């Protein structure tokens, strides 16, 4: 009996991922859906800033040119695309895709499903006035504390509008803050006709989405176990889920690609960014990661089964970004002999100068790259024979002026500090604006009625 499979291929794990991946997913073998996840916690605020400078921006700018490359392929093969590339301007993103389709001579042949309603920036005051405090989930502070600094506010929404867009005939679904997992779950619910309250299958599709949402991170990329044995990563095979109607699925990748799909590679991705494994909460339901069974089912094929889940919660998570202050990080490299001691001496001098100038910072953090920057005291005593050590010193303040002044205090150390110093060719470090993240919860009934799906034709 040949059982029907639906193949969802991941093409991007974040905004900035390998640009060739989606092209190879489309051309390297059979797939039904191409799923492109662009959004991380801070991505929305970056996009909001870009939109502030140019109202046509605010989405993943890589996406329309990518679509222009692959639209002829997906039109010919009937592949459909789901993506949250829309960021804080899904309409602008959708229109750019439509223009790309017209340039490719596909006018009338490409339909774009546009999902809106996750963006609540313009509704914040109304929501606050009606008693939604949008408290920070970590600190408990009410949003009113930082209301005037808010840059973006988006509810994480689930797969329902994607299903609706696919039902409406969309070839490319463009959304804002749809969850990473919803981009995979949506196609499966649409294809198999799963009930949105079939919690085990919803959980299964969610786990499938979680496994492939970071692209090649489940297929050999960033794989710690036996990392030397991972071959062919110049052409990494991005993951593909082959799903069955019963909720089981196989994770695999195209033939003639590098990397590996194994129980260890999938397990490492499953535990990535994990909280309480008994209850992985999404807008669509909760998944129990302790129910997941993995088995190797052939070369570069891992079968996933046994997944159970539970109902969705009444609340949706809201991702709010707000302006916090300024930071800068400066670096200098000190060479053997006594590289570490020279770097610590330079740090001492620099800190004294900052204090003498009366500069005030929320924090000054010094790290010694090559000695202890990533593992701290666990790295043990520094090696006196180290060929070089990088002094890396960062400051953070609410005001710009002290951070700005700090950036001018790095280079002078070259002629006024310890010897054998180099690595300052990059010039003064940049002052960065800090956009901080404020996670909150909101009653889903405040969001769901506002979610809208439009089908636009090129």
């Amino acid at each position, binding site marked *: 009996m040949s059982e029907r499979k639906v193949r969802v291929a991941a093409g991007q794990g974040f905004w900035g991922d390998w640009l060739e991946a989606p092209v190879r997913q489309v051309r390297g073998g059979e797939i039904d859906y191409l799923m492109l996840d662009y959004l991380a*916690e*801070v991505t929305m605020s970056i996009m909001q800033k870009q939109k502030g400078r140019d109202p046509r921006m605010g989405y993943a700018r890589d996406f329309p040119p990518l679509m222009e490359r692959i639209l002829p392929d997906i039109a010919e093969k009937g592949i459909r695309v789901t993506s949250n590339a829309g960021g804080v301007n899904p309409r602008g993103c959708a229109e750019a895709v439509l223009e790309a389709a017209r340039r490719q001579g596909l006018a009338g042949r490409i339909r774009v499903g546009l999902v809106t309603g996750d963006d609540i920036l313009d509704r914040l005051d109304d929501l606050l006035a009606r008693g939604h405090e949008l408290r920070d989930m*970590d600190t408990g502070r009410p949003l009113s504390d930082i209301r005037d600094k808010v840059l973006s506010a988006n509810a994480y929404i689930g797969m329902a509008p994607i299903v609706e867009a696919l039902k409406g005939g969309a070839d490319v679904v463009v959304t804002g803050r749809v969850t990473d997992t919803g981009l995979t779950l949506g196609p499966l619910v649409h294809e198999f006709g799963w009930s949105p309250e079939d919690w085990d299958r919803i959980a299964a599709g969610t786990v499938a989405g979680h496994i492939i949402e970071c692209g090649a991170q489940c297929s050999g990329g*960033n794989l*710690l*176990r*036996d990392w*030397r*044995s991972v071959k062919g990563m110049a052409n990494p095979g991005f993951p593909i889920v082959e799903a069955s109607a019963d909720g089981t699925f196989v994770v695999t990748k195209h033939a003639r690609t590098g990397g590996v799909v194994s129980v*260890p590679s999938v*397990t*490492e*991705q*499953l*535990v*990535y*960014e*994990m*909280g*309480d*494994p*008994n209850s992985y909460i999404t807008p669509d339901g909760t998944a129990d*990661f*302790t*129910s*997941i*069974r*993995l088995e190797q089912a052939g070369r570069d094929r891992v079968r996933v089964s*046994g997944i159970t889940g539970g109902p969705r919660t009444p609340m949706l998570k809201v991702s709010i970004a707000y302006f*916090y202050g300024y*930071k800068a*990080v400066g670096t200098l490299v000190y060479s053997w002999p006594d590289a570490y001691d020279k770097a610590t001496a330079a740090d001492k001098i620099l800190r004294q100068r900052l204090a003498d100038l009366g500069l005030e910072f929320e*924090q000054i*953090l010094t*790290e010694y*790259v090559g000695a202890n*920057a*990533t*593992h*701290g*005291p*666990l790295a*043990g*005593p*520094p*090696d*006196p*024979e180290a060929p070089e050590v990088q002094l*890396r010193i*960062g*400051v*953070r303040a609410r005001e710009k002026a002290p951070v700005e002044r700090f950036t001018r205090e790095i280079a002078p150390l070259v002629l006024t500090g310890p010897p054998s110093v180099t690595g300052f060719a990059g010039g003064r470090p940049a002052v960065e604006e*800090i*956009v*901080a*993240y404020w*996670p909150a919860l909101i009653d889903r009934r405040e969001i769901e009625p506002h979610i809208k799906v439009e089908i636009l034709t090129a």
Partner: protein
Amino acid sequence: MPAKKRVPKRTPVKKAASSRAAGPATVPVQLRWLAHARSGDKGDTANVGLIALEPEYYPLLVKEVTRQRVARHFRGGVASVERFELPNLNALNFLLHGALDGGGTLSLKTDAQGKVYSTALLRMEVPVPRVLARRLQPPRGPRTSPA
């Protein structure tokens, strides 16, 4: 302070322990020989998923890599530790709260998103039965350490 030169160990068994003919029943072994790991972040919390290299090592991880020992391993660097068990994946998940110096964009750390807390945990030593410790092999492939 005279710093000792750090040469990666060629075998997981400590020399001092293994050279004694009738030593203790267990020897300290770094977790890197028993597990692999991946970490990520949520706000100011880093997570470390610790995965047994072989299913038979999982009960040992459950017994030895306790919440308290992990908290002690990262002392000064984390506010509190939670542990979850995933016997289906032969894995433990640790949440290291307050580990990221404010987290996300606020943090000034190189590892602001906790990406390599995983390897920091693999430095931890746990007591391993001598018989098992003898069998633990360094991973295949060329060594990067000076021979």
